[in-house]
């Protein structure tokens, strides 16, 4: 577990430092070293994420395992950040300018991130549903020989799968999809092309007008790089951590079905390129942003690599079942191709089966971590507030 490794080494450093007798200057120097190390680690971690090879499907950009790595790095950065902010320094510093303004803003951002975590956790339930549908398609088409029955079974499920993916994207409000899914009656529905029954929609966990994109946009409020003298103090890790948090939430929302994502690609990161640690994040942001722009127009459930593969193969197999229906039979070559595609479709299913629950639990871990840090920061602020003379 890289998370614990980083934490352990970090805690080790802290304790070593505690044993030293440090003069005021030494203290400051130590702080500078910590900050430098922090941004070095951030830069290394995100460079690793950026260099993820596209040809290795397991680690591809926005694949489940990539997202898990991203969250892992988030947890590492977060632990280090908290250490710098709360352990090493005079606690009263967090109540002095500019931190007296930056910390409450950071906490505000944290709360917004929590809602994004919940929306994404909810969205993973939809992905789970896609997985189950795709598994049906696989089991229909892996039977030999593929006949009309198998083809129809696959087609029916594929129709559900493809429309479910589209519904999630375009109309995340549960109400519309729900009405359509269960209120149809047999009357007026021709027996051959029935409305797919496997329709299921993202259930709203928050109010209908909640928007993931707006939420993330709001997280970027007041997010500006520290200027001048502030740049060398604690304002800089607060800024860095904020950018990381916004980026992670943004990437999750781009990857996983989520309520209302209009304008996601328009979200601008105020991270200047001259900051070393920011370069990889900016690179990732551009790369994912491009991808999102491409997909946004025609609609997508999300950029999750496994889901995109599923969508692509789903469309190919849909064509196959259409031609099967049209011709009544197929050549052996076509059948073999279809079987190969079905086998290919089994791969993202397998990775979802293995990875979705751990991913969901990791998002939960991120959630709890953000809550914990928030509570600790609030307590620290409270303590500082108490030590100053009371108003009464």
């Amino acid at each position, binding site marked *: 577990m890289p998370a614990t490794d980083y934490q352990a080494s970090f805690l080790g450093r802290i304790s070593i430092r505690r044993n030293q007798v440090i003069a005021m200057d030494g203290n400051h120097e130590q702080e500078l070293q910590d900050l430098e190390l922090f941004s070095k680690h951030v830069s290394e971690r995100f460079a690793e994420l950026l260099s993820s090879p596209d040809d290795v499907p397991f680690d591809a950009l926005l694949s489940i395992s990539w997202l898990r790595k991203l969250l892992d790095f988030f947890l590492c950065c977060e632990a280090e950040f908290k250490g710098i902010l709360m352990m090493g320094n005079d606690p009263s510093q967090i109540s002095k300018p500019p931190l007296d303004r930056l910390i409450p803003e950071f906490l505000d951002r944290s709360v917004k991130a929590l809602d994004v975590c919940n929306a994404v956790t909810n969205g993973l339930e939809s992905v789970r549903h896609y997985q189950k549908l795709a598994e049906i398609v696989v089991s229909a088409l892996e039977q030999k*020989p593929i006949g*009309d*029955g198998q083809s*129809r079974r696959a087609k*029916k499920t594929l129709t559900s799968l493809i429309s479910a993916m589209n519904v999630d994207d375009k109309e995340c409000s549960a109400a519309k999809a729900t009405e359509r899914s269960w209120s149809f009656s*047999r009357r007026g529905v021709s027996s051959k092309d029935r409305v797919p029954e*496997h329709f*299921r929609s993202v259930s709203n*966990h928050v109010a209908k007008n909640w928007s993931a994109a707006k939420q993330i946009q709001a997280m970027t409020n007041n997010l500006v790089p520290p200027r001048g003298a502030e740049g060398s103090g604690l304002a800089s890790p607060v800024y860095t951590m904020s950018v990381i948090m916004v980026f992670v939430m943004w990437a999750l929302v781009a990857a996983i079905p989520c309520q209302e994502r209009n304008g996601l690609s328009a979200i601008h990161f105020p991270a200047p390129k001259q900051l070393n640690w920011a370069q990889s994040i900016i690179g990732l942001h551009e790369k994912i942003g491009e991808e999102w722009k491409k997909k946004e127009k025609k609609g997508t459930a999300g950029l999750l690599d496994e889901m995109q593969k599923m969508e692509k193969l789903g469309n190919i197999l849909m064509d196959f079942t259409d031609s099967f229906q049209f011709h009544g039979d197929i050549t052996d070559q076509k059948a073999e191709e279809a079987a190969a595609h079905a086998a290919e479709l089994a791969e993202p299913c397998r990775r979802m089966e293995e990875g979705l629950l751990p991913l969901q639990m990791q998002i939960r871990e991120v959630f709890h971590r953000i809550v914990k840090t928030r509570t600790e920061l609030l307590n620290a602020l409270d303590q500082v507030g108490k030590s100053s003379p009371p108003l009464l």
Partner: protein
Amino acid sequence: MDECQSAIPAHDGDLHVVAAAHHIVKALGTTKNLSDDLRKILIDLDAHLSLITSNIDSKGGKGFVEVEERLKRVERKIVIWESDRIMIWDSGPKEASDYLEAVDEVQTLIDSLRGLSMNENQKQKELLHRASSLLQMAMSRLEEELIHMLVKHKQQSEPTYIPSPSSQRNVVYNESVVSLDNESAKEASSKNSCSDECGEYIVDLVPEHVIPDIKSIAKVMFASDYGQEFCEAFIGVRKEALEQHFDILENGKLSIEDLLKMEWCSLSTEMNKWTWSMKIIFGVYLMSEKRLCDQVLGEFGSVNSFCFLEIAKTTILCLLNFGEAIAMGPQEPEKLLRLLDMYETLADLVIDIDALFSEDGGSFVRLEFHKLLEGLADSVKAAFNAFGVAVSSNGSLYPFPGGGVHPLSKYVMNYISMFPEYCSTLNLLLEDQHSDVASLVSEPQCGPTASLSTSCPMACHLRSITSSLESNLHKKSKLYKDEALQHIFLMNNLHYMVQKVKGSELRPFFGDEWIRKHNAKFQQHEMNYERVTWSSVVLLLKDDNPGSSSLSKSAFKEKCKGFSIAFEEVYKNQTSWCIPDPQLREDLRISTSLKVVHAYRTFLGRNPAHVDDKCIKHTVEDVEKLLFDLFEGSPRSLRNSRRMMKT
């Protein structure tokens, strides 16, 4: 089944054996009172034997004729429904069982044809395709029937009693200091004790008589390897039904951001709704849903727990997130009772949650709720401490007019009188902070000789809160310039505390020793009041020269005048003071009267020669009566009262 296949006879001589066996099977099949399973076996066996026969026949070139015939027969039975707009299960049990029988037959034919696949026969391949196609048609239909059935029957199964959280629980503690009269305070904090009323109880989410139908569809779909389709359709409808129930409970779909910004008034309502929803969703719906899943899917391995989890997850996450949002919010003292409700509700449900999600896939849910329970426990502790801090730090700039019972005393005493209802929970949660507080509260009850109820963590915390209240009241008393009023104020408030303790469930936690001690305290203030106010007045009447029998006229007159002025001064002041408790007021008046009137009477009695109207402004009777005007909280000037007395 495979064993049957492997036994396909190769020799003509076996044909007779097969034919004989076939005959017996057919004869057995006509027997009535066969169990379903046995009948199924016979049908399967029948199919196999006829296939073997036809296979042997095919040597003669005829091939698969009987299979084709049978396929055609079931095809008619299945296809005929495709053009029909009426649902099969709505048409009647006969139609349904005929259909299921037909599907069984298709499956049997498919199994048999597959079993023969070593034989690369074009006809066989064609028949297999036809049969699979037919099976797909039937499965698709069954799925539709299932959805129709589940949707049609789900509405009827709503428990009828769901009340919306009653408004009386939503009375608000907006501030930490509000003067609530006892009545509304009691009402406001009345515990949400619906756990006794609803508890866990299982309802039929789908009417009992429909279950066998659903099961029969499940059976045939799983047998045909369409189990996944069944599960997805089942999950889809049940999930939505659960979400509808959840919506009926009026849980606002609120983001954490919204909840953290919410006014206490609305938040309190939401917290009540959550408590209620948890009980209904877990105690009733999920329990029932679990049973439904077990009933329908219990025979098919672990799918029942998988389906249950899928159905429940989104609703559970909603409830979980609300809990998390509350647990992370600032823990203000006014939240304490609602937090206790939430904690107790979850603590009661945790065993059920563990049982509902005992499988591996549900460990996530179990873990999260245990975490939430810890979070809520911390919140309760934090709110309890915040309450203590609020009690000791509540500050005032101005003295409370009249010296009566301060709103803080009322608020605190009414609020803590709700605590005994949460006694076991508070004892559990306050245990670890117990020793600190126990040492702070230097009551003898906390010693080893104390009884159980007075030495429990809650009792010590309660006494610690009242002692904070006492010291705060002392602070507040210093705001009065008049020392006598300081004593009246403390007497009133201490008396109020004692009365509250004596007249409520608090008594066993405070103990007789505490009551005795605090009785003594307020009596001390009573005496101090008398001393401060009246000693100097009475002193004016004192005989300067105890040896001589009587005073000179002028000295007498002087003393009389001094007394009158002092008395009138007291009268003018203290009629505006307030002793709300009638008994306490009465007692104080009597004891004052005894002291003052007695002194006055003695004084006058000692100087009978000078007693005339001119120099005695107030008769003994006047003074006695006037004393009864004190502490009524309505200022009077003496001239008025004198005039009144003369008329």
